[in-house]
Protein backbone atom coordinates (compact mmCIF):
# COMPACT_ATOMS: atom_id res chain seq x y z
CA UNK A 1 0.00 0.00 0.00
CA UNK A 2 1.52 3.35 -1.07
CA UNK A 3 2.56 5.25 2.02
CA UNK A 4 3.74 8.01 -0.26
CA UNK A 5 1.11 9.11 -2.68
CA UNK A 6 2.23 12.11 -4.77
CA UNK A 7 0.55 15.23 -3.44
CA UNK A 8 0.28 14.16 0.18
CA UNK A 9 1.17 16.82 2.71
CA UNK A 10 4.77 16.94 3.81
CA UNK A 11 5.07 15.88 7.41
CA UNK A 12 1.63 14.32 7.50
CA UNK A 13 2.57 12.41 10.64
CA UNK A 14 3.49 15.68 12.37
CA UNK A 15 0.24 17.24 11.27
CA UNK A 16 -1.65 14.30 12.70
CA UNK A 17 0.08 14.87 16.01
CA UNK A 18 -1.43 18.35 16.09
CA UNK A 19 -4.87 16.77 16.42
CA UNK A 20 -5.18 15.11 19.84
CA UNK A 21 -8.35 13.18 19.00
CA UNK A 22 -6.58 11.24 16.25
CA UNK A 23 -4.70 9.37 18.95
CA UNK A 24 -7.90 7.95 20.37
CA UNK A 25 -8.57 4.26 20.65
CA UNK A 26 -12.14 3.24 19.99
CA UNK A 27 -14.15 0.22 21.13
CA UNK A 28 -12.33 -3.12 20.95
CA UNK A 29 -8.98 -1.38 20.69
CA UNK A 30 -9.33 -0.10 17.15
CA UNK A 31 -7.54 3.15 16.41
CA UNK A 32 -9.83 5.96 15.28
CA UNK A 33 -10.11 6.31 11.49
CA UNK A 34 -12.03 9.55 11.14
CA UNK A 35 -13.56 9.85 7.68
CA UNK A 36 -16.38 12.23 8.53
CA UNK A 37 -14.67 15.58 8.06
CA UNK A 38 -17.29 16.94 5.68
CA UNK A 39 -19.63 16.66 8.66
CA UNK A 40 -17.26 18.35 11.04
CA UNK A 41 -13.48 18.63 11.15
CA UNK A 42 -11.24 17.78 14.07
CA UNK A 43 -9.42 20.54 15.98
CA UNK A 44 -5.68 21.02 16.28
CA UNK A 45 -4.19 21.58 19.71
CA UNK A 46 -3.36 25.18 18.88
CA UNK A 47 -7.03 26.02 18.37
CA UNK A 48 -7.97 24.43 21.68
CA UNK A 49 -5.07 26.06 23.51
CA UNK A 50 -5.85 29.47 22.09
CA UNK A 51 -9.43 29.19 23.29
CA UNK A 52 -8.32 28.03 26.71
CA UNK A 53 -5.86 30.90 27.03
CA UNK A 54 -8.61 33.33 26.11
CA UNK A 55 -11.03 31.89 28.66
CA UNK A 56 -8.44 31.66 31.41
CA UNK A 57 -6.80 35.04 30.92
CA UNK A 58 -8.69 37.43 28.65
CA UNK A 59 -12.38 36.68 28.97
CA UNK A 60 -14.66 39.73 28.92
CA UNK A 61 -17.45 41.05 26.78
CA UNK A 62 -16.40 42.95 23.66
CA UNK A 63 -16.95 46.42 22.30
CA UNK A 64 -18.68 47.52 25.48
CA UNK A 65 -16.00 47.93 28.05
CA UNK A 66 -13.33 50.48 28.85
CA UNK A 67 -11.38 48.09 31.08
CA UNK A 68 -8.23 46.16 30.20
CA UNK A 69 -9.87 42.74 29.93
CA UNK A 70 -12.55 44.25 27.71
CA UNK A 71 -9.85 45.75 25.54
CA UNK A 72 -8.01 42.46 25.29
CA UNK A 73 -11.19 40.53 24.48
CA UNK A 74 -12.22 43.07 21.85
CA UNK A 75 -8.81 42.97 20.28
CA UNK A 76 -8.80 39.17 20.23
CA UNK A 77 -12.28 39.05 18.75
CA UNK A 78 -11.51 41.59 16.05
CA UNK A 79 -8.21 39.86 15.31
CA UNK A 80 -10.29 36.76 14.58
CA UNK A 81 -12.26 38.80 12.08
CA UNK A 82 -9.09 40.13 10.47
CA UNK A 83 -7.61 36.67 10.13
CA UNK A 84 -10.76 35.31 8.56
CA UNK A 85 -10.91 38.27 6.18
CA UNK A 86 -7.30 37.75 5.13
CA UNK A 87 -7.90 34.03 4.70
CA UNK A 88 -10.65 34.58 2.11
CA UNK A 89 -9.34 37.76 0.51
CA UNK A 90 -11.95 40.03 2.06
CA UNK A 91 -12.04 43.40 3.80
CA UNK A 92 -12.46 43.08 7.56
CA UNK A 93 -15.69 45.07 7.63
CA UNK A 94 -17.22 42.67 5.16
CA UNK A 95 -16.94 39.71 7.52
CA UNK A 96 -20.01 39.09 9.67
CA UNK A 97 -19.87 36.45 12.38
CA UNK A 98 -22.97 34.28 12.66
CA UNK A 99 -23.55 31.10 14.60
CA UNK A 100 -23.03 28.77 11.65
CA UNK A 101 -23.38 28.66 7.87
CA UNK A 102 -27.08 28.03 8.21
CA UNK A 103 -27.64 31.29 10.06
CA UNK A 104 -25.58 33.13 7.45
CA UNK A 105 -27.79 31.82 4.64
CA UNK A 106 -30.96 32.51 6.61
CA UNK A 107 -29.74 36.01 7.35
CA UNK A 108 -29.58 36.72 3.64
CA UNK A 109 -32.89 35.05 2.77
CA UNK A 110 -34.60 36.73 5.67
CA UNK A 111 -33.40 40.28 5.09
CA UNK A 112 -34.24 40.10 1.37
CA UNK A 113 -37.89 39.89 2.42
CA UNK A 114 -37.62 43.26 4.14
CA UNK A 115 -35.03 45.05 1.99
CA UNK A 116 -35.94 48.34 0.47
CA UNK A 117 -35.70 49.01 -3.23
CA UNK A 118 -33.99 46.74 -5.69
CA UNK A 119 -32.97 43.92 -3.42
CA UNK A 120 -36.42 43.16 -2.05
CA UNK A 121 -37.84 39.81 -3.08
CA UNK A 122 -41.57 39.89 -3.73
CA UNK A 123 -44.39 38.40 -5.79
CA UNK A 124 -43.33 37.51 -9.33
CA UNK A 125 -39.64 37.39 -8.44
CA UNK A 126 -37.70 34.18 -8.82
CA UNK A 127 -35.08 32.65 -6.56
CA UNK A 128 -32.85 30.10 -8.26
CA UNK A 129 -31.07 27.33 -6.37
CA UNK A 130 -29.91 23.83 -7.34
CA UNK A 131 -31.02 20.30 -6.65
CA UNK A 132 -27.70 19.48 -4.96
CA UNK A 133 -28.01 22.04 -2.17
CA UNK A 134 -27.66 21.24 1.50
CA UNK A 135 -30.99 21.69 3.30
CA UNK A 136 -29.53 24.86 4.78
CA UNK A 137 -29.48 26.38 1.32
CA UNK A 138 -32.95 25.11 0.40
CA UNK A 139 -35.26 25.66 3.35
CA UNK A 140 -34.42 29.36 3.88
CA UNK A 141 -35.36 30.04 0.26
CA UNK A 142 -38.52 28.00 0.54
CA UNK A 143 -39.50 30.05 3.58
CA UNK A 144 -38.63 33.29 1.76
CA UNK A 145 -40.53 32.47 -1.42
CA UNK A 146 -43.55 31.06 0.43
CA UNK A 147 -43.75 34.12 2.61
CA UNK A 148 -43.24 36.74 -0.10
CA UNK A 149 -45.11 35.16 -2.99
CA UNK A 150 -41.94 34.72 -5.01
CA UNK A 151 -41.16 31.53 -6.93
CA UNK A 152 -38.44 29.03 -6.14
CA UNK A 153 -36.70 27.41 -9.11
CA UNK A 154 -33.66 25.19 -9.39
CA UNK A 155 -31.03 23.72 -11.64
CA UNK A 156 -31.44 19.96 -12.03
CA UNK A 157 -28.56 17.48 -11.98
CA UNK A 158 -27.01 15.35 -14.67
CA UNK A 159 -26.66 11.61 -14.30
CA UNK A 160 -22.97 11.97 -13.50
CA UNK A 161 -23.59 14.28 -10.57
CA UNK A 162 -23.12 17.73 -12.07
CA UNK A 163 -25.37 20.75 -12.42
CA UNK A 164 -27.52 20.50 -15.50
CA UNK A 165 -26.91 23.90 -17.05
CA UNK A 166 -28.69 23.08 -20.32
CA UNK A 167 -31.65 25.30 -19.45
CA UNK A 168 -29.66 28.11 -17.88
CA UNK A 169 -30.98 30.63 -20.42
CA UNK A 170 -34.48 29.93 -19.29
CA UNK A 171 -33.70 29.64 -15.58
CA UNK A 172 -31.66 32.83 -15.34
CA UNK A 173 -34.00 35.50 -16.61
CA UNK A 174 -35.17 39.01 -15.86
CA UNK A 175 -37.33 37.77 -12.98
CA UNK A 176 -34.38 36.11 -11.27
CA UNK A 177 -33.66 38.07 -8.11
CA UNK A 178 -31.26 35.71 -6.38
CA UNK A 179 -29.09 32.80 -7.44
CA UNK A 180 -27.87 30.78 -4.49
CA UNK A 181 -25.72 27.71 -4.97
CA UNK A 182 -23.14 25.58 -3.32
CA UNK A 183 -19.56 25.82 -4.44
CA UNK A 184 -18.70 22.23 -3.52
CA UNK A 185 -21.39 19.63 -2.89
CA UNK A 186 -21.25 17.96 0.51
CA UNK A 187 -22.82 14.83 -0.93
CA UNK A 188 -21.60 14.44 -4.51
CA UNK A 189 -18.30 16.23 -4.07
CA UNK A 190 -19.00 18.18 -7.25
CA UNK A 191 -17.18 21.48 -7.66
CA UNK A 192 -19.57 23.85 -9.39
CA UNK A 193 -18.56 26.53 -11.92
CA UNK A 194 -19.52 29.26 -9.50
CA UNK A 195 -17.84 32.11 -11.33
CA UNK A 196 -19.46 31.26 -14.64
CA UNK A 197 -22.92 31.05 -13.09
CA UNK A 198 -22.31 34.23 -11.09
CA UNK A 199 -21.43 36.11 -14.27
CA UNK A 200 -24.62 34.92 -15.92
CA UNK A 201 -26.63 35.85 -12.87
CA UNK A 202 -25.08 39.28 -12.68
CA UNK A 203 -25.79 39.88 -16.34
CA UNK A 204 -29.44 39.24 -15.54
CA UNK A 205 -29.26 41.59 -12.55
CA UNK A 206 -29.49 38.89 -9.89
CA UNK A 207 -27.73 38.72 -6.56
CA UNK A 208 -25.33 35.80 -6.15
CA UNK A 209 -25.11 33.88 -2.88
CA UNK A 210 -22.52 31.13 -2.56
CA UNK A 211 -22.61 28.39 0.05
CA UNK A 212 -18.89 27.83 0.52
CA UNK A 213 -19.25 25.54 3.55
CA UNK A 214 -17.34 22.76 1.78
CA UNK A 215 -15.14 25.00 -0.36
CA UNK A 216 -13.38 27.11 2.24
CA UNK A 217 -12.09 24.06 4.16
CA UNK A 218 -10.70 22.39 1.06
CA UNK A 219 -9.27 24.91 -1.34
CA UNK A 220 -7.89 28.42 -1.60
CA UNK A 221 -10.88 30.77 -1.72
CA UNK A 222 -10.83 34.35 -2.92
CA UNK A 223 -14.27 35.78 -2.34
CA UNK A 224 -13.85 38.55 -4.86
CA UNK A 225 -12.68 36.25 -7.65
CA UNK A 226 -15.51 33.83 -6.85
CA UNK A 227 -18.04 36.23 -8.29
CA UNK A 228 -20.25 35.98 -5.21
CA UNK A 229 -22.01 38.97 -3.71
CA UNK A 230 -22.50 37.07 -0.49
CA UNK A 231 -20.77 33.92 0.68
CA UNK A 232 -21.27 31.69 3.71
CA UNK A 233 -19.20 29.11 5.52
CA UNK A 234 -18.95 27.57 8.94
CA UNK A 235 -16.22 27.48 11.59
CA UNK A 236 -16.41 23.86 12.64
CA UNK A 237 -15.49 22.57 9.18
CA UNK A 238 -12.25 24.60 8.97
CA UNK A 239 -10.70 23.06 12.11
CA UNK A 240 -12.39 25.78 14.18
CA UNK A 241 -15.01 25.46 16.92
CA UNK A 242 -18.77 25.09 16.64
CA UNK A 243 -20.90 28.12 17.43
CA UNK A 244 -19.47 30.35 14.73
CA UNK A 245 -20.13 30.86 11.05
CA UNK A 246 -19.16 33.52 8.57
CA UNK A 247 -21.17 35.61 6.19
CA UNK A 248 -19.02 37.56 3.81
CA UNK A 249 -20.72 40.19 1.71
CA UNK A 250 -19.48 42.95 -0.49
CA UNK A 251 -19.86 46.14 1.48
CA UNK A 252 -22.34 47.70 -0.85
CA UNK A 253 -24.78 44.79 -0.58
CA UNK A 254 -24.35 44.41 3.18
CA UNK A 255 -25.08 48.09 3.59
CA UNK A 256 -28.28 47.85 1.61
CA UNK A 257 -29.66 44.87 3.53
CA UNK A 258 -31.87 45.76 6.50
CA UNK A 259 -30.97 44.36 9.92
CA UNK A 260 -31.70 40.74 10.73
CA UNK A 261 -31.65 40.17 14.49
CA UNK A 262 -32.19 43.22 16.67
CA UNK A 263 -30.48 43.90 19.96
CA UNK A 264 -27.32 44.96 21.72
CA UNK A 265 -24.37 46.09 19.61
CA UNK A 266 -26.25 46.29 16.30
CA UNK A 267 -27.69 49.71 17.05
CA UNK A 268 -26.56 53.26 16.60
CA UNK A 269 -29.15 54.69 18.92
CA UNK A 270 -32.36 53.41 20.50
CA UNK A 271 -35.43 55.21 21.72
CA UNK A 272 -38.67 53.48 22.60
CA UNK A 273 -40.17 54.85 19.38
CA UNK A 274 -37.45 53.86 16.97
CA UNK A 275 -33.87 52.76 16.49
CA UNK A 276 -31.10 53.40 14.03
CA UNK A 277 -28.49 50.82 13.24
CA UNK A 278 -24.75 50.52 13.40
CA UNK A 279 -22.49 50.20 10.39
CA UNK A 280 -21.63 46.81 8.93
CA UNK A 281 -20.59 44.35 10.17
CA UNK A 282 -21.99 45.27 13.62
CA UNK A 283 -25.45 45.82 12.12
CA UNK A 284 -25.73 42.05 11.70
CA UNK A 285 -24.20 41.01 15.02
CA UNK A 286 -26.94 41.41 17.60
CA UNK A 287 -26.11 40.55 21.17
CA UNK A 288 -22.94 39.12 22.57
CA UNK A 289 -21.12 37.55 19.64
CA UNK A 290 -19.30 34.19 19.66
CA UNK A 291 -16.17 35.68 21.22
CA UNK A 292 -14.06 32.70 22.22
CA UNK A 293 -15.26 31.03 19.03
CA UNK A 294 -13.94 33.90 16.89
CA UNK A 295 -10.65 33.61 18.74
CA UNK A 296 -10.59 29.88 18.00
CA UNK A 297 -11.57 30.41 14.39
CA UNK A 298 -8.76 32.91 14.00
CA UNK A 299 -6.31 30.31 15.25
CA UNK A 300 -7.89 27.75 12.93
CA UNK A 301 -7.45 29.76 9.75
CA UNK A 302 -3.95 30.68 10.88
CA UNK A 303 -3.22 26.98 11.19
CA UNK A 304 -4.61 26.25 7.74
CA UNK A 305 -2.75 29.24 6.38
CA UNK A 306 0.52 27.88 7.72
CA UNK A 307 -0.09 24.51 6.13
CA UNK A 308 -1.10 26.35 2.97
CA UNK A 309 -4.44 25.91 1.28
CA UNK A 310 -2.77 24.98 -2.00
CA UNK A 311 -1.14 22.11 -0.16
CA UNK A 312 -4.37 21.13 1.54
CA UNK A 313 -6.10 21.05 -1.82
CA UNK A 314 -3.33 18.89 -3.31
CA UNK A 315 -3.52 16.55 -0.35
CA UNK A 316 -7.30 16.27 -0.68
CA UNK A 317 -6.97 15.49 -4.38
CA UNK A 318 -4.40 12.79 -3.72
CA UNK A 319 -6.41 11.17 -0.95
CA UNK A 320 -9.67 11.46 -2.84
CA UNK A 321 -8.11 9.84 -5.88
CA UNK A 322 -6.86 7.02 -3.71
CA UNK A 323 -10.27 6.75 -2.07
CA UNK A 324 -12.09 6.62 -5.40
CA UNK A 325 -9.70 3.88 -6.56
CA UNK A 326 -10.16 1.94 -3.36
CA UNK A 327 -13.93 2.15 -3.52
CA UNK A 328 -13.96 1.09 -7.16
CA UNK A 329 -12.19 -2.10 -6.14
CA UNK A 330 -15.15 -3.13 -3.99
CA UNK A 331 -17.63 -5.24 -5.93
CA UNK A 332 -21.23 -4.11 -5.63
CA UNK A 333 -20.27 -0.59 -4.60
CA UNK A 334 -21.53 2.37 -6.60
CA UNK A 335 -20.26 5.90 -6.23
CA UNK A 336 -22.62 8.88 -6.41
CA UNK A 337 -21.07 11.91 -8.12
CA UNK A 338 -18.07 12.66 -10.32
CA UNK A 339 -15.30 10.07 -10.46
CA UNK A 340 -12.38 12.34 -11.24
CA UNK A 341 -10.54 13.65 -8.14
CA UNK A 342 -9.36 16.76 -9.98
CA UNK A 343 -12.71 18.40 -10.27
CA UNK A 344 -14.33 17.29 -7.06
CA UNK A 345 -14.03 17.79 -3.33
CA UNK A 346 -13.09 15.20 -0.76
CA UNK A 347 -16.54 13.89 0.18
CA UNK A 348 -17.45 10.63 -1.57
CA UNK A 349 -20.93 9.14 -1.17
CA UNK A 350 -21.67 5.59 -2.22
CA UNK A 351 -24.02 2.66 -1.92
CA UNK A 352 -23.17 -0.94 -1.21
CA UNK A 353 -25.45 -3.44 -2.83
CA UNK A 354 -27.77 -5.26 -0.39
CA UNK A 355 -26.47 -3.55 2.73
CA UNK A 356 -28.21 -0.48 4.01
CA UNK A 357 -25.93 2.54 4.61
CA UNK A 358 -26.68 2.46 8.34
CA UNK A 359 -25.54 -1.09 8.55
CA UNK A 360 -22.43 -0.31 6.54
CA UNK A 361 -21.59 2.57 8.85
CA UNK A 362 -22.26 0.41 11.89
CA UNK A 363 -19.94 -2.34 10.70
CA UNK A 364 -17.23 0.16 9.81
CA UNK A 365 -17.64 1.79 13.20
CA UNK A 366 -17.10 -1.55 14.91
CA UNK A 367 -13.62 -1.36 13.37
CA UNK A 368 -13.04 2.26 14.39
CA UNK A 369 -13.84 3.69 10.95
CA UNK A 370 -16.15 6.71 11.27
CA UNK A 371 -18.23 7.56 8.19
CA UNK A 372 -21.61 9.15 7.78
CA UNK A 373 -24.74 7.30 6.75
CA UNK A 374 -28.04 8.85 5.78
CA UNK A 375 -29.09 11.69 3.52
CA UNK A 376 -26.34 14.12 4.63
CA UNK A 377 -28.91 16.95 4.62
CA UNK A 378 -29.31 16.60 0.86
CA UNK A 379 -32.58 14.73 0.52
CA UNK A 380 -33.49 16.16 -2.88
CA UNK A 381 -30.18 15.09 -4.43
CA UNK A 382 -30.63 11.62 -2.99
CA UNK A 383 -34.12 11.51 -4.42
CA UNK A 384 -32.80 12.67 -7.78
CA UNK A 385 -30.64 9.58 -7.91
CA UNK A 386 -33.35 7.30 -6.54
CA UNK A 387 -31.39 6.70 -3.38
CA UNK A 388 -32.92 6.84 0.07
CA UNK A 389 -29.63 7.04 1.91
CA UNK A 390 -25.94 6.62 1.25
CA UNK A 391 -22.63 6.18 3.01
CA UNK A 392 -20.22 9.08 2.86
CA UNK A 393 -16.50 8.97 3.50
CA UNK A 394 -14.80 12.36 3.69
CA UNK A 395 -11.16 13.14 4.22
CA UNK A 396 -9.21 16.17 5.39
CA UNK A 397 -5.66 17.37 5.73
CA UNK A 398 -4.95 14.75 8.42
CA UNK A 399 -6.20 11.76 6.42
CA UNK A 400 -3.67 9.09 5.42
CA UNK A 401 -3.78 6.46 2.66
CA UNK A 402 -3.67 3.82 5.39
CA UNK A 403 -6.99 5.13 6.69
CA UNK A 404 -8.49 4.68 3.25
CA UNK A 405 -7.14 1.13 3.27
CA UNK A 406 -8.88 0.56 6.60
CA UNK A 407 -12.12 1.78 5.06
CA UNK A 408 -11.84 -0.51 2.06
CA UNK A 409 -10.98 -3.48 4.24
CA UNK A 410 -13.92 -2.58 6.43
CA UNK A 411 -16.22 -2.62 3.45
CA UNK A 412 -15.06 -6.09 2.45
CA UNK A 413 -15.60 -7.21 6.03
CA UNK A 414 -19.09 -5.69 5.95
CA UNK A 415 -19.97 -7.66 2.88
CA UNK A 416 -18.75 -10.82 4.50
CA UNK A 417 -20.66 -10.09 7.68
CA UNK A 418 -23.90 -9.61 5.79
CA UNK A 419 -23.07 -12.48 3.44
CA UNK A 420 -23.11 -10.40 0.31
CA UNK A 421 -20.77 -11.20 -2.55
Amino acid at each position, binding site marked *: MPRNLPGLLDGLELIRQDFPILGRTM*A*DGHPLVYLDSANTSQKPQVVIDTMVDHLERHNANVARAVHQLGGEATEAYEAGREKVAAFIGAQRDEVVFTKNASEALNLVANTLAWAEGDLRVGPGDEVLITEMEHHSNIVPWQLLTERTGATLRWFGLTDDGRLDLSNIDELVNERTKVVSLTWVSNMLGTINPVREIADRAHAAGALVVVDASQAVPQMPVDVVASGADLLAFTGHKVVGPTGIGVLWGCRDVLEKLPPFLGGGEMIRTVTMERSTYADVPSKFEAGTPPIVEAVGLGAAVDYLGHVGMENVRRHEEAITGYLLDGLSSVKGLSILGPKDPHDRGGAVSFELDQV*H*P*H*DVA*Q*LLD*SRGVAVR*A*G*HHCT*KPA*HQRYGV*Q*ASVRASSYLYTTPEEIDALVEGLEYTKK*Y*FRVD
Partner: protein
Amino acid sequence: MSDLDAMYQEIILDHYKNPHHAGLREPYEAEVHHVNPTCGDEVTLRVHLDSTDDDAVIEDVSYDALGCSISQASVSVLTDLLIGKKVKEALDVHEEFLALMQGRGTVEPDEDVLEDGIAFAGVAKFPARVKCALLGWMAWKDATTQVVARTAGPTEEMA
Protein backbone atom coordinates in the same frame (compact mmCIF):
# COMPACT_ATOMS: atom_id res chain seq x y z
CA MET B 1 -20.70 -12.50 21.68
CA SER B 2 -19.52 -9.05 20.61
CA ASP B 3 -21.85 -6.07 20.91
CA LEU B 4 -22.08 -6.08 17.16
CA ASP B 5 -23.16 -9.70 16.98
CA ALA B 6 -25.59 -9.05 19.82
CA MET B 7 -27.21 -6.37 17.68
CA TYR B 8 -27.17 -8.22 14.40
CA GLN B 9 -28.71 -11.45 15.66
CA GLU B 10 -29.66 -14.14 13.16
CA ILE B 11 -33.34 -13.43 13.89
CA ILE B 12 -32.91 -9.79 12.94
CA LEU B 13 -31.07 -10.53 9.75
CA ASP B 14 -33.70 -13.15 8.85
CA HIS B 15 -36.53 -10.67 9.33
CA TYR B 16 -34.55 -8.11 7.32
CA LYS B 17 -34.01 -10.45 4.39
CA ASN B 18 -37.53 -11.92 4.57
CA PRO B 19 -39.85 -9.38 6.17
CA HIS B 20 -43.18 -10.68 7.44
CA HIS B 21 -46.49 -9.10 6.46
CA ALA B 22 -44.75 -6.58 4.18
CA GLY B 23 -46.74 -4.47 1.73
CA LEU B 24 -49.74 -2.20 2.12
CA ARG B 25 -53.13 -3.87 2.32
CA GLU B 26 -56.83 -3.02 2.45
CA PRO B 27 -58.94 -2.57 4.46
CA TYR B 28 -57.49 -0.16 7.02
CA GLU B 29 -58.80 2.55 9.31
CA ALA B 30 -55.65 4.64 9.56
CA GLU B 31 -52.46 5.10 7.61
CA VAL B 32 -49.42 7.03 8.84
CA HIS B 33 -46.09 7.95 7.36
CA HIS B 34 -43.18 8.27 9.77
CA VAL B 35 -39.68 9.44 9.02
CA ASN B 36 -36.54 9.38 11.09
CA PRO B 37 -35.42 12.94 10.29
CA THR B 38 -31.77 12.40 11.10
CA CYS B 39 -31.21 9.42 8.80
CA GLY B 40 -34.17 9.40 6.45
CA ASP B 41 -35.59 5.96 7.27
CA GLU B 42 -39.26 5.87 6.34
CA VAL B 43 -42.28 3.73 7.00
CA THR B 44 -45.83 3.92 5.75
CA LEU B 45 -48.01 1.85 8.02
CA ARG B 46 -51.70 0.90 8.10
CA VAL B 47 -53.77 -0.63 10.87
CA HIS B 48 -57.00 -2.51 10.55
CA LEU B 49 -58.99 -3.10 13.74
CA ASP B 50 -62.15 -5.15 14.01
CA SER B 51 -63.92 -2.47 16.01
CA THR B 52 -63.12 0.79 17.71
CA ASP B 53 -64.01 0.03 21.27
CA ASP B 54 -61.82 -0.96 24.16
CA ASP B 55 -61.77 -4.58 23.20
CA ALA B 56 -60.80 -4.03 19.58
CA VAL B 57 -58.67 -6.73 17.99
CA ILE B 58 -55.88 -5.91 15.54
CA GLU B 59 -56.89 -7.64 12.33
CA ASP B 60 -53.96 -6.45 10.27
CA VAL B 61 -50.87 -4.25 10.28
CA SER B 62 -49.44 -3.68 6.82
CA TYR B 63 -46.51 -1.48 5.86
CA ASP B 64 -44.03 -0.28 3.32
CA ALA B 65 -40.64 0.42 4.89
CA LEU B 66 -37.41 1.92 3.60
CA GLY B 67 -34.48 1.67 5.91
CA CYS B 68 -31.75 -0.27 7.57
CA SER B 69 -31.84 -3.86 8.81
CA ILE B 70 -32.83 -2.80 12.29
CA SER B 71 -35.77 -0.64 11.30
CA GLN B 72 -37.03 -3.18 8.75
CA ALA B 73 -36.66 -6.19 11.01
CA SER B 74 -38.31 -4.35 13.84
CA VAL B 75 -41.51 -3.59 11.96
CA SER B 76 -41.58 -7.15 10.67
CA VAL B 77 -41.36 -8.51 14.22
CA LEU B 78 -44.02 -6.02 15.26
CA THR B 79 -46.55 -7.47 12.84
CA ASP B 80 -45.84 -11.00 14.09
CA LEU B 81 -46.35 -9.87 17.65
CA LEU B 82 -49.36 -7.61 17.34
CA ILE B 83 -51.62 -8.98 14.63
CA GLY B 84 -54.40 -10.89 16.31
CA LYS B 85 -53.91 -9.22 19.70
CA LYS B 86 -56.34 -6.90 21.40
CA VAL B 87 -55.28 -3.25 21.24
CA LYS B 88 -55.02 -3.18 25.00
CA GLU B 89 -52.63 -6.11 25.05
CA ALA B 90 -50.69 -4.73 22.11
CA LEU B 91 -50.11 -1.49 23.98
CA ASP B 92 -48.54 -3.48 26.79
CA VAL B 93 -46.21 -5.17 24.31
CA HIS B 94 -45.40 -1.72 22.92
CA GLU B 95 -44.54 -0.51 26.41
CA GLU B 96 -42.35 -3.51 27.02
CA PHE B 97 -40.49 -3.04 23.74
CA LEU B 98 -40.02 0.67 24.43
CA ALA B 99 -38.64 -0.07 27.89
CA LEU B 100 -36.22 -2.60 26.43
CA MET B 101 -35.00 -0.18 23.75
CA GLN B 102 -34.56 2.74 26.10
CA GLY B 103 -32.85 0.67 28.78
CA ARG B 104 -29.34 1.11 27.34
CA GLY B 105 -28.79 -2.61 27.64
CA THR B 106 -29.74 -2.88 31.32
CA VAL B 107 -33.30 -4.19 30.86
CA GLU B 108 -33.84 -7.97 30.78
CA PRO B 109 -36.38 -8.66 28.03
CA ASP B 110 -39.41 -10.85 28.80
CA GLU B 111 -39.51 -13.52 26.10
CA ASP B 112 -43.12 -14.43 26.90
CA VAL B 113 -44.18 -10.94 25.92
CA LEU B 114 -41.70 -10.03 23.21
CA GLU B 115 -40.96 -13.38 21.52
CA ASP B 116 -38.63 -12.62 18.54
CA GLY B 117 -38.53 -9.05 19.83
CA ILE B 118 -36.01 -10.05 22.49
CA ALA B 119 -33.45 -10.19 19.69
CA PHE B 120 -33.46 -6.39 19.81
CA ALA B 121 -31.96 -6.35 23.29
CA GLY B 122 -28.54 -5.86 21.69
CA VAL B 123 -29.69 -2.75 19.83
CA ALA B 124 -30.32 -0.95 23.10
CA LYS B 125 -26.55 -0.58 23.53
CA PHE B 126 -26.36 1.53 20.36
CA PRO B 127 -28.25 4.75 21.09
CA ALA B 128 -28.01 5.86 17.47
CA ARG B 129 -29.86 2.74 16.37
CA VAL B 130 -32.62 2.77 18.99
CA LYS B 131 -34.55 5.21 16.81
CA CYS B 132 -34.31 2.75 13.93
CA ALA B 133 -35.81 -0.01 16.05
CA LEU B 134 -38.60 2.24 17.28
CA LEU B 135 -39.64 3.79 13.96
CA GLY B 136 -42.28 1.16 13.11
CA TRP B 137 -43.51 0.93 16.69
CA MET B 138 -44.07 4.66 16.93
CA ALA B 139 -45.90 4.59 13.64
CA TRP B 140 -48.11 1.74 14.81
CA LYS B 141 -48.99 3.54 18.03
CA ASP B 142 -49.76 6.74 16.15
CA ALA B 143 -52.03 4.97 13.66
CA THR B 144 -53.81 2.98 16.34
CA THR B 145 -54.33 6.04 18.51
CA GLN B 146 -55.88 7.81 15.55
CA VAL B 147 -58.45 5.07 15.03
CA VAL B 148 -59.42 4.81 18.65
CA ALA B 149 -59.32 8.53 19.37
CA ARG B 150 -61.35 9.32 16.29
CA THR B 151 -64.23 7.25 17.54
CA ALA B 152 -63.76 7.93 21.21
CA GLY B 153 -64.11 11.67 20.58
CA PRO B 154 -61.64 14.39 21.41
CA THR B 155 -61.95 14.26 25.18
CA GLU B 156 -61.10 10.65 25.72
CA GLU B 157 -57.63 10.12 24.36
CA MET B 158 -55.47 7.05 24.69
CA ALA B 159 -52.67 7.14 27.20
